[in-house]
C-alpha cells in the first residue's frame, strides 16, 4: 500500500475499506483483540492498552471523519510487527476531514480519545491533511507468541 507512504513489510492484520461507523469500530476491535491474543504474549495491562488505543483511533474516524459527508467513508486498520525491534505498529487511516471540523463543534475538544492514545501507546502520532488522517500507534518490547517465519 502506498497511501500515506506505508511500507509493505509483511503486514499481518489488515481491515481495509471498512465504513467508518461505530458498528465496524466494534467489530474490528474484536477481531483485532483476537489477532493480538493469538500472535503475541501480552500481559493483561498491555493487551488492554493496545486494544483501547486502537479503538479510540477508530472511534475518532467513525465520529468525526465524515461529519460533513452524507454517509461514512472508509477507514483502514493495519497492524505490523517488526521482529528486529519487537515493535508493534498499528495505523488507522481515513480519508475524511475530521481535523478541520468547525471549531464550534465542541465535541471534538471534549473528547479524550487523543490524550488516551498518547497515554496508552509508547508513541502516538496524528497526521492530518486534506486527503485524510492517519493515526500511528507504536508499542515497544512486544513479544511474539509465534516463531519467526
Amino acid at each position, binding site marked *: 500500500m502506498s497511501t500515506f507512504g506505508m511500507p509493505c513489510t509483511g503486514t499481518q492484520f489488515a481491515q481495509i475499506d471498512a465504513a467508518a461507523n461505530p458498528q465496524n469500530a466494534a467489530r474490528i476491535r474484536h477481531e483485532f483483540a483476537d489477532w493480538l491474543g493469538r500472535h503475541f504474549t501480552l500481559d493483561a495491562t498491555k493487551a488492554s492498552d493496545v486494544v483501547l488505543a486502537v479503538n*479510540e483511533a477508530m472511534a475518532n474516524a467513525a465520529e468525526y471523519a465524515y461529519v460533513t459527508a452524507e454517509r461514512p467513508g472508509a477507514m483502514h486498520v493495519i497492524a505490523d510487527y517488526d521482529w528486529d525491534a519487537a515493535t508493534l505498529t498499528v495505523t488507522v487511516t481515513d480519508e475524511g476531514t475530521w481535523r478541520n471540523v468547525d471549531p464550534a463543534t465542541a465535541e471534538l475538544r471534549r473528547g479524550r480519545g487523543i490524550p488516551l492514545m498518547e497515554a496508552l501507546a509508547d508513541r502516538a502520532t496524528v497526521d492530518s491533511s486534506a486527503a485524510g488522517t492517519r493515526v500511528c500507534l507504536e508499542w515497544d518490547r512486544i513479544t511474539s507468541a509465534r516463531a519467526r517465519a
Partner: protein
Amino acid sequence: MASQPAASSCTVEQKRVGEIDVLSVAGVVDMLTAPQLEEAITAAGKDSPQGVIVDLSAVDFLASAGMGILVAARDELPASVQFAVVADGPATSRPLKLVGIADIVGLHATLDEALAALTA
C-alpha cells in the same frame, strides 16, 4: 484470549442500597453502548437519591465515549446528588486514572469503599 462476542453488549442493573442508587454495569461500554449508561444514570438521578454509584467492576472494556458519560453525569446530576464510580483493573481504572478522570468523578476500587465514602 477468549474470542469476543460479535456485538458490543452492555447491561445496566439498578438497585437501591439505603439512600444510594447503585448502577451495576457489565460488558462493553463504547460509543455504541454508552447511551444506555447515560440513560440509566439520568433515570437514577430522578429518584432523588442521596447518591448514585456507577459500578464498573463487571465491565470488560471502557472506551472514551463511556468515560465522557461519567464526567457529564457528575456535572448533570442535581447538586444534591453525590456521585462515585467503582472500577478496578487494566480495562477500567487504569485508563480513568491515565486521563485524570479518576480525580474528577471520585473513583473507588470496590463498591463497599464507594458506599462508605458517600455515606460517611
